[in-house]
């Protein structure tokens, strides 16, 4: 009953026109950005996060949560209408969504996508509400050795599942940890890796770096393509009959199953919506009575993919809020925004800022209703968003990036950090070195270092402290096991050469997703479709 009481207080807290307007504005902005191919959800949250630093947390964070939700849903619109997923998380939606649109059943695909998204998000939000607080109550009893091992496990997982090479993932983690060390040592006060620069004494500013790595690097990638974007709009993409009750009833088991998968995967560090959508899609095709329709216009396929990716959004907030471990890159940016608002994620967050947190949970529920109403009303107009030319879009985003990066600390040096981050991000994407491990390691490193030091201080320098606690020992064994597995996989997984995709349009569409797909090392081998020449497939 405590949870419901707290939730009621949360609703009271956010029942102001400012909070609700911010959430609605964020949702609308997120849908628009998500619907634009090339603009990712992470990019949207990173670029717009600095706006919220000047707002109260009950206004700023709802805005960002709205963007997050809107962008993940918005990605399905171009996936259905122009066969180009707006975000990597909507890649699986494109398979059946665009096929349905070609058959003149685009409206059914768009409405299925919306309804599945809303239901999945709603259920996952309830899981977040009922799991997060009890988990935090347990986590508060964790000691520093337990947290040390938990951070190590999270970093190992992120290094292992991001991209197709464990070595590159681990390297990215190491670089992130190094970047977090720049500045003054919190205990001794010694300068570390500042190379005599006064600007680096305070460390590397996180938000400008994130804007550079996620937004500027994407702009550089798009510039390389010369703004080339195939907008082969499918005739009648929003035509035909919508989702009726009979079809909806048939989809309920698929939506619920995919929601379960998305919620579980979202709560694990490193496995974001991009992976969840494919696993949900794969399981749905296996369990379907009409598996032959998958890839050729299956409504179940659209529902599975969309429920799978949208369930991740609230679920990824569980490790972020309870342990301070972001589940994916978007929650990593959100973590930065929480910290900027003075809300330090971790088990104490529920004790110190309980009412505000329940306010955020309430806003997650409210935005679901908003998404449904807004989506149903605007569904046939949303596809026009994809017509905005990249030549106007990316210069505008560039200006917003510079404004946002400066706004964080009012420091010119942050522009240099952002541009350097952009160049580094671009080179990392080109060479398939995953960016998420770097960002997440940079966020986790201070906590990891602090917990290592605390553990050793408590144990008078004895390393046995890391195996004396049963929980720490169990997590250590788990970490070592996954490390051995990922290392083995790196050396023994031989890629299979495949013939190139004949469709230039499909190749272009896939290229948009390549960076994300390789980051997560995901394969659609089971379906035997669209493998790349290195044996990996986008998505």
């Amino acid at each position: 009953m405590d949870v419901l009481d707290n939730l009621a207080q949360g609703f009271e807290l956010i029942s102001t026109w400012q909070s609700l307007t911010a959430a609605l504005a964020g949702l609308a902005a997120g849908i628009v950005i998500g619907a634009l191919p090339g603009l990712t959800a992470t990019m949207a949250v990173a670029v717009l996060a600095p706006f919220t630093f000047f707002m109260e947390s009950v206004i700023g964070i709802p805005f960002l949560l709205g963007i997050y939700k809107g962008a993940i849903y918005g990605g399905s619109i171009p996936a259905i209408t122009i066969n180009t997923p707006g975000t990597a998380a909507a890649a699986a939606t494109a398979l059946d969504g665009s096929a349905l649109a070609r058959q003149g059943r685009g409206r059914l695909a768009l409405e299925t996508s919306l309804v599945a998204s809303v239901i999945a998000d709603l259920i996952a939000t309830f899981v977040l509400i009922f799991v997060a607080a009890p988990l935090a109550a347990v986590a508060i009893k964790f000691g520093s050795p337990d947290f040390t091992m938990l951070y190590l496990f999270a970093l190992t997982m992120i290094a292992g599942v991001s991209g197709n090479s464990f070595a590159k993932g681990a390297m990215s983690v190491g670089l992130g940890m190094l970047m977090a060390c720049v500045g003054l040592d919190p205990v001794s006060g010694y300068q570390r890796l500042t190379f005599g620069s006064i600007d680096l004494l305070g460390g590397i500013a996180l938000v400008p770096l994130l804007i550079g790595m996620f937004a500027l690097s994407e702009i550089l990638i798009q510039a390389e393509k010369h703004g080339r974007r195939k907008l082969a709009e499918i005739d009648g993409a929003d035509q035909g009959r919508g989702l009726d009750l009979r079809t909806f009833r048939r989809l309920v088991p698929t939506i619920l199953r995919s929601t379960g998968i998305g919620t579980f995967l979202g709560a694990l560090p490193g496995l974001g919506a991009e992976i969840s959508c494919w696993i949900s899609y794969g399981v749905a095709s296996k369990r379907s009575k009409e598996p032959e329709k998958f890839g050729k216009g299956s409504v179940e396929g659209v529902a599975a993919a969309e429920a799978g990716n949208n369930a991740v959004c609230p679920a990824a907030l569980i490790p972020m809020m309870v342990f301070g471990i972001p589940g994916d890159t978007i929650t990593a940016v959100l973590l930065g925004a929480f910290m900027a608002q003075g809300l330090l994620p971790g088990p104490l967050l529920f004790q110190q800022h309980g009412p505000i947190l329940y306010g955020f949970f309430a806003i997650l529920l409210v935005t679901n209703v908003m998404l449904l109403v807004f989506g149903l009303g605007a569904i046939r107009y949303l596809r026009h968003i994809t017509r905005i030319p990249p030549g106007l879009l990316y210069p505008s985003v560039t200006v917003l990036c510079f404004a946002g990066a400066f706004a964080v600390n009012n420091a010119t040096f942050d522009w240099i950090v952002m541009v350097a981050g952009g160049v580094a991000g671009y080179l990392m994407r080109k060479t398939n070195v995953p960016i998420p491990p770097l960002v997440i390691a940079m966020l986790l490193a201070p906590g990891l270092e602090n917990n290592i030091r605390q553990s050793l201080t408590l144990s008078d320098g004895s390393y046995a402290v890391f195996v004396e606690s049963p929980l720490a020992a169990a997590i250590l064994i788990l970490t070592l096991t996954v490390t051995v597995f990922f290392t083995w996989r790196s050396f023994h997984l031989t890629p299979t050469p495949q013939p190139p995709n004949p469709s230039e349009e499909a190749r272009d569409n896939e290229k948009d997703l390549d960076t994300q797909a390789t980051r997560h090392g995901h394969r659609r081998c089971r379906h035997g479709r669209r493998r790349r020449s290195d044996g990996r497939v986008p998505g």
Partner: protein
Amino acid sequence: MRKSLSDRLIAVIALAISAVVFLALPHDVPGTSLATFADMESAAFFPMLAATLVGVSAVMLAVGSLNTSSRRADDDVDAIGPRPVLMVIGFCIFIPLIHGLGMVTASAITILVLPLVFGYRDYRWILPLAVLLPFAVYGLFEKILKVLFPHGAVF
């Protein structure tokens, strides 16, 4: 460039970064040596741990790129195109331009120039955007959020 060669290049760069950290730390934290690695409470321990991780993963990557099976399925890595290089040069010019001319003027110039890199030349749309967006950003940040952008010679 072949993927295996690119991987080896990444490994060399990562090893160099790792070496720089090990060389720089004794200047930053007095009394630091390789033996400090055993002292987890030292200020140098964590950067050393991170540098070691970078170094070890670089060696793993280099060894992996020499692996016969990965060489057999060696892909090409896309070369860096001229447009991203031009864009980065543009970004580097943009920063002093903001100080020289002011945020609004520099943003307007950027919006006028950047579409060309994307092959977009419809100035019926570019011109209004170049006027409206910088003023919108100025209004939002300076007037509402009270963030003071650098004001240069113009605006």
